[in-house]
């Protein structure tokens, strides 16, 4: 049975044990965060002042925080936010970045110059400042609404994706098989969508996978600053650091969210590296 390039790449990926480990850990964490709170009927917001600051025990596996809330519930539910934001914001940046970069790279010349000037300009803007501004603006109108978060974070990342896609498309545009298709009379739209983009797909997947951790960290940072909209790992880390003191160390309040965050980020990186090796064994990306 003949295998398509994509199938061969997946075969190579599965042989990469580190990448598979990363993928498995990711799946495990995602599953836990999404399903377990429902199955176990966990409530992250139930305050039980009598049980505050309890170290890990049989009843509270991760312990409780300053308001007596179950940390297992908080970490898992908080994970939903972090992961969701990571995925959604990356999706936004991929969609916008790919569309923008593909058009610039495909047409080249003055169109490309103009479009990339805009990207260069936007790169120069003080991003965190703008993101914080956006978050502040929206936090007044819609508390708990995730959309502004996705947009704000996606807006930061699309520039990188646009640059990467533009570079790949620019190079592929001059490849003989694309020229041959053009010489056969194939329309520009079909050339871009059927011939060029499928061959860029691999690179997009790699960079998207590696972008998710950046977004999660960004979101964590925002939460850490108090600008988050919902419970997330970043906020939990912030809570954990707030109670660190030399006299009574409530280490578990910091440990669990940071571990989950760290493992997720490392797993995403392993997976991303594995994807890169699988899709491009000769190291062209």
């Amino acid at each position, binding site marked *: 049975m003949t*295998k398509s390039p994509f199938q061969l790449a997946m075969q190579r990926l599965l042989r990469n044990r580190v990448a598979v480990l990363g993928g498995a850990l990711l799946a495990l964490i995602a599953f836990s965060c999404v399903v377990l709170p429902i199955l176990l009927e966990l409530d992250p917001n139930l305050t039980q002042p009598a049980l505050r600051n309890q170290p890990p025990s049989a009843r509270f596996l991760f312990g409780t925080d300053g308001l007596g809330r179950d940390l297992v519930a908080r970490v898992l539910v908080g994970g939903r936010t972090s992961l969701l934001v990571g995925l959604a914001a990356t999706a936004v940046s991929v969609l916008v970045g790919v569309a923008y970069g593909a058009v610039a790279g495909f047409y080249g010349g003055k169109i490309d110059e103009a479009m990339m000037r805009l990207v260069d300009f936007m790169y120069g803007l003080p991003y965190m400042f703008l993101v914080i501004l956006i978050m502040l603006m929206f936090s007044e109108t819609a508390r708990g609404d995730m959309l502004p978060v996705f947009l704000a974070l996606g807006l930061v990342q699309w520039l990188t994706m646009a640059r990467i896609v533009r570079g790949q498309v620019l190079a592929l545009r001059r490849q003989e098989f694309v020229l*041959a298709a053009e010489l056969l009379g*194939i329309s520009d739209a079909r050339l871009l969508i059927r011939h060029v983009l499928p061959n860029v797909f691999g690179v997009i997947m790699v960079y998207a996978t590696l972008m998710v951790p950046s977004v999660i960290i960004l979101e964590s940072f925002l939460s850490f600053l108090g600008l988050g909209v919902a419970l997330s790992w970043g906020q939990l880390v912030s809570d954990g650091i707030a109670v660190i003191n030399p006299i009574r160390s409530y280490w578990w309040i910091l440990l669990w969210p940071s571990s989950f965050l760290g493992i997720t980020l490392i797993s995403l990186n392993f997976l991303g590296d594995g994807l890169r090796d699988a899709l491009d064994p000769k190291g062209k990306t």
Partner: protein
Amino acid sequence: MTEHAPLLEVRDLRVHFASEGNVVRAVDGVDFDLRAGETLALVGESGCGKSSLARALVGLNPITSGAAQLNGRTITGLTRTAARAFRRELQLVFQDPYASLNPRFTIAQTLAEPLLLHRKASRSNVDSKVSELLGQVGLDPELRARYPHEFSGGQRQRISIARALAVEPSLLLCDEVTSALDVSIQAQILELLRSIQRTRGLSYLFITHDLGVVRYIAHRVAVMYVGQIVELRDTESLFESPAHPYTQALLASIPRVSRAAQTRAPLPGEVPSPARPPSGCRFHPRCALAFDRCPKEHPDLYPVPNGSSRCFLNE
């Protein structure tokens, strides 16, 4: 051959482009005709302009001046949409078999696309047309569900040729199509091209640096040097009695399987860059027969038996 108007007419074609502050005169005043069913070889060393010329003819490079006509209609200097009207008649096969096929398409998809686009097949019969095409280039039709990475260089070139033939062109530009292949595979492809020419009455504009291949496949030869044609002749006349000193030097430089000891001195000097062509006759700095006129004036193409040559000695 009956007296038809030529299939392809090229008149004073020039392709210049700017690079690092210089004007690169890649193609600098080229004229020739190509008749139906004929193979014209374009031969030369690096910088001679043969590839730039081919790409200009299909519209991949912009033309600076001059024109080319296919069946009486101008094919140069057109917008991309206007050029699309000629996509059927003029096809190009590339040198690199490993870059010429979309790695994500099966062979069937690669061949079906032009067939369907130009209505050479309908959705109901495209499969059998693909099989037919594969058969015509000597490949097993059962292979059509495979991907390019499963094929060798020679097989990929066959597939590229099949793709070009799918739209039933009258002229095929072959840009160094066998240069990346082993000798034995090259022989297979050359034989294939010759037989296709016989069955379909195709014309070829065959670009190569290999004079042995030229002698085998071409009816006429155009030798190019730094953007210009320096000799244009019937193949056998060119090899038996080359008129231009560059052609003579080129033929003498080719290593041959021969019992005789090789005693001739190689042609001195470097191949000039088309960004800085020598004054007067472009070959004069390396020419053993150059005289006082050569650096000063630029020779035209003068008639010689069965062709023309750009040398004052042939005037």
